[in-house]
């Protein structure tokens, strides 16, 4: 059956679409006028930078003072109920308690909890989540997010805090972020400060502030993109990450490149090593249009996926050197 009716109501009616239209019509936007405007628009240009900076500073101060007051016992963290009655294993939590290595924190539809990550930060666990404390101590702290959502705020040298999920491992590189895991193990990371490295299945994604990245149990980390990137680019990028066949991947990549701008340099850099070889020159040339290759980096070296060349080009983004991430991996992986 043609999609004409689904497209715009023309052509032969599709009974399923008609039934859905009838069922869903009561949910349509209720008629209402636009809200009345306040007297003057608020001038946010200054506040948008100053506000978050002050909020972040206040959060760090609160975090430091709280962690100094509540130094944890070895091998366990403080856990506090934020809403409802979260559980540590089978024990219901009211107020504060402890979670030991190996134990699982469980929240239901009406409960949330906050974990104090040793002396380096806090993790808020949203509703309907399961989080296991895997390790803590000696500059290494690890959680396993089995499902649900957590918000991490970490103030520590890069690499000390790690969250594993069924589809990728998130390594904190000095930041704040939100990580969500679906029931099927797929994940979604949004970084609100600093950056995060995602790794699995020999793939890695470096996700800076303002960007997000999907993870998939079969493929590992997807390709990061900025949250305010072109919608068409984001759609095509998701399709590219999901596609298994070269034809679809190539077609979606074409859309990505058509809609990419200088603000998408991070996305393009990741695509260099992910596209199929015949498509690689187009990606390299697209990135080179927005970001010159540093001295000593050649097009041939990049096309050959020379790690040193790729890292030096990454460094040119000004988001932080890749070198210490490589060193961190050598030590930690």
């Amino acid at each position, binding site marked *: 059956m043609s999609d004409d009716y689904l*497209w715009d109501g023309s052509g032969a009616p599709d009974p399923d679409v008609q039934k859905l239209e009838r069922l869903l019509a009561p949910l349509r936007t*209720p008629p*209402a006028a636009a*809200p009345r405007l306040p007297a003057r*628009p*608020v001038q946010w240009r200054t506040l948008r930078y100053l506000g978050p900076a002050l909020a972040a500073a206040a959060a760090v101060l609160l975090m430091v003072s709280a962690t100094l007051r509540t130094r944890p016992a070895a091998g366990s963290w403080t856990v506090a109920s934020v809403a409802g009655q979260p559980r540590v294993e089978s024990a219901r939590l009211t107020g504060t308690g402890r979670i030991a290595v190996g134990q699982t924190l469980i929240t239901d539809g009406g409960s949330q909890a906050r974990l104090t990550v040793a002396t380096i930060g806090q993790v808020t666990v949203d509703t309907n989540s399961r989080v296991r404390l895997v390790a803590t101590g000696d500059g290494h702290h690890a959680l396993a997010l089995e499902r649900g959502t957590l918000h991490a705020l970490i103030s520590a040298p890069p690499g000390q805090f790690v969250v594993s999920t069924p589809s990728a491992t998130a390594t904190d590189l000095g930041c704040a972020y939100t990580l969500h895991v679906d029931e099927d193990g797929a994940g979604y990371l949004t970084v609100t400060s600093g950056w995060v490295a995602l790794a699995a299945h020999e793939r890695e994604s470096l996700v800076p502030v303002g960007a997000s990245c999907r993870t998939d149990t079969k493929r590992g980390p997807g390709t990061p993109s900025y949250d*305010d990137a072109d919608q068409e680019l984001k759609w095509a990028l998701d399709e590219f990450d999901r596609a298994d066949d070269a034809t679809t991947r190539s077609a979606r990549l074409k859309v990505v490149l058509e809609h990419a701008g200088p603000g998408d340099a991070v996305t393009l850099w990741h695509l260099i090593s992910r596209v199929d070889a015949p498509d690689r020159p187009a990606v390299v040339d697209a990135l080179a249009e927005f970001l010159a290759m540093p001295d000593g980096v050649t097009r041939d070296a990049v096309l050959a996926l020379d790690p040193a060349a790729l890292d030096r080009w990454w460094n040119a983004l000004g988001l932080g050197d890749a070198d210490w991430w490589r060193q961190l991996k050598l030590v930690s992986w």
Partner: protein
Amino acid sequence: MRRPRMEHALEIGRLRPVSTGARSAAKASDRGDDAAAIRAVAAGDQDAFSHLYERYVRMVHAILLGRVPRRDADDLVQDVFLIAYTRIGELRDAAAFAGWLAAIARNRATDYLRQSREQVELPDELPGGDAIEAETLAVLDAVRRLPEAYRETLLMRLVEGMSGNEIAERTGLTPASVRVNLHRGMKLLREKLGWVSHE
């Protein structure tokens, strides 16, 4: 592949576009209207604000409906437009308005859900409320479980009654992408509802 060369601006370690290059004639016309309205709204013009509201209210409502209980979606629409008004000075490119407004709607829904978790959750259907068929709520639940791109596009088509071309025009997606979203979304929805596909 040659694209329009863009100027660069370095902002907190990120290269950002100053100009987004060529657009289709139709979109350019619509966005030209939007650009004028956005400038007028920034100056506090209520009529221009109403114009943008009428053009985008169904898109915003569909995005919210895909994430929050339906009663709350109705209320949050107003919030989203007021947030957009207070932040409209941040918008550097009028062509990005649709995506920017959609992002505000998604973020507002996320914030709302985060806040509401500390309150008692109400069922979608309350005594004394307007009657909604159980089957309607079941279908809405199935749509909400679709991937984001399919969910939003289907809600714009099936709930808001927008045509594929309207959806493309309002969201900034190409008609081809909207067609793919509708087709795949409908296929997945049929599977979730246990309906036999007509393909």
